[in-house]
């Protein structure tokens, strides 16, 4: 059994904001108990999968380790009970690809898969480059100081994905606010109540209200796209068929919600964290400046470095063996991606930021059938931004102390104040 202080740390949103505390906890686990059971206060027990190889092994077997039978995000006992009461027995407030298993997962993923494939995205690259250039120009216009997270990293991927979905630019601030309220629900700077959320019922009610606002918005969009389809993702979802029938209501709304949240927040976190790392490591910045062919490896390293998705949960559908341990049917498991991406058996000097790291087989996008659908879009957005920004960025340094969002699911930098020189 994992010691109580470590068990409590790995679910504590504040520990992820500090990062060092959570890094130390996982380092200890990888060394001393790489696959063991934790029972944080107020939570059901769950296995903590800390090693890169074990994460791949679980993700690869998506019929043996399900997403949808238990909450996909680590959730206190009372919160799971409350959600099940509200959702007719389901442990989920939404039902997106993340909460589905086969055959639904396969069928629903197929609906938009071709949209997110590299050959389709190549058609979008010129437009994405225009957007990236406009943000680089905006940054240059700020003079010699900005908050790179708030002024560039949060807004650029937001603009790209909203254009892909078909959300008008005027609604982007609403989408950003709702995303931050959803993923930052434990952060008093970001959640809807602007407070520490201690009461489970109040926290669930707050999340439900955020989901409700998304649904109101996208319900109207569905009607509009059914009446007049366009060349956008919203039209694919609104008019899509699964086994000859339109998508279920909750499933359709959830499809929009995941695209409108995960479709930019993860990329924003990685972009902000990538520049933060360059500002903190001037030798790496100079190396990258001297050799732009390193942009792809810098990009992968920034994804590994930030690992914006901190975990997903799985549950076993049958008795199984993993890393020599017996996993019983129904057992709940936390796949810790930041831990897998600092695994000393896979990465040389894992706590060093290395723009030339190769190979870099991180698990930040997951693995197996549930591997991130938007990974190719995220990579393209970041590559294009760095191709436009780095040649113009002559100097960069931190201009204060960056901060991170308090969250144990999806999080990254909240503020990255920098001083810079651009031409």
């Amino acid at each position: 059994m994992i010691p109580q202080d470590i068990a409590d740390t790995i679910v504590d949103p504040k520990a992820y904001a500090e990062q060092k505390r959570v890094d130390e906890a996982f380092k200890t686990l990888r060394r001393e108990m790489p696959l063991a059971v934790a029972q944080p206060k107020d939570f059901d027990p769950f296995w903590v999968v800390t090693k890169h190889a074990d994460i791949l092994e679980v993700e690869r077997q998506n019929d043996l380790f399900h997403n949808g039978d238990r909450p996909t995000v680590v959730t206190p006992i009372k919160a799971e009970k409350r959600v099940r009461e509200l959702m007719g027995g389901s442990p989920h407030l939404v039902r997106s690809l993340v909460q589905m298993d086969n055959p639904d997962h396969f069928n629903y993923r197929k609906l938009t898969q071709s949209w997110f494939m590299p050959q389709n995205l190549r058609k979008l690259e010129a437009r994405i480059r225009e957007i990236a250039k406009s943000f680089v120009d905006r940054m240059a216009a700020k003079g010699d100081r900005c908050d790179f997270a708030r002024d560039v990293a949060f807004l650029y991927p937001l603009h790209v994905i909203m254009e892909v979905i078909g959300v008008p630019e005027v609604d982007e601030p609403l989408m950003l606010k709702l995303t931050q309220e959803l993923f930052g629900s434990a952060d008093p700077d970001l959640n809807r109540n602007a407070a520490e959320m201690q009461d489970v019922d109040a926290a669930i009610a707050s999340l439900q209200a955020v989901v409700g606002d998304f649904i109101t918005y996208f319900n109207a969009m569905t009607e509009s796209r059914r009446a007049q389809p366009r060349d956008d993702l919203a039209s694919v979802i609104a008019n899509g068929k699964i086994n000859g029938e339109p998508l279920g209501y909750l499933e359709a709304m959830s499809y929009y919600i995941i695209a409108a949240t995960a479709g930019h927040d993860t990329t924003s976190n990685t972009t902000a964290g990538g520049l933060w790392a360059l500002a903190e490591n001037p030798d790496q910045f100079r190396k990258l400046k001297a050799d732009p062919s390193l942009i792809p490896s810098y990009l992968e390293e920034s994804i590994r470095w930030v690992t914006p998705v901190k975990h997903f949960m799985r549950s076993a559908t049958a008795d199984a063996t993993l890393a020599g341990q017996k996993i019983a049917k129904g057992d709940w498991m936390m796949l810790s991606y930041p831990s897998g991406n600092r695994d000393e058996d896979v990465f040389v000097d894992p706590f060093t930021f290395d723009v030339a790291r190769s190979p870099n087989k991180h698990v930040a996008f997951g693995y197996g059938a549930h591997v991130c659908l938007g990974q190719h879009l995220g990579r393209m957005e970041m590559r294009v931004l760095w191709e436009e920004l780095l040649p113009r960025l002559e100097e960069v340094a931190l201009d204060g102390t960056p901060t991170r969002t308090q969250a144990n699911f999806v999080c990254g930098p909240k503020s990255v104040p920098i001083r810079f020189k651009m031409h």
Partner: protein
Amino acid sequence: MADGKEAFKVWQCRTCGYLYEEEFGDPNEGLKPGTRWADIPDDWICPLCGTPKSDFDMVELE
């Protein structure tokens, strides 16, 4: 034309969309530029998602 014989081809993973382009290989996977699909071992798996080589399709890129 490659090798003076056959044009390079592109193969795509059905699960995640990873592209293997014979012309460029995949140095991270130890596959040098010019490595033909047929020369990649049958037990090789997609580096992004673990899908087996048998679940790749040949595709044409514009």
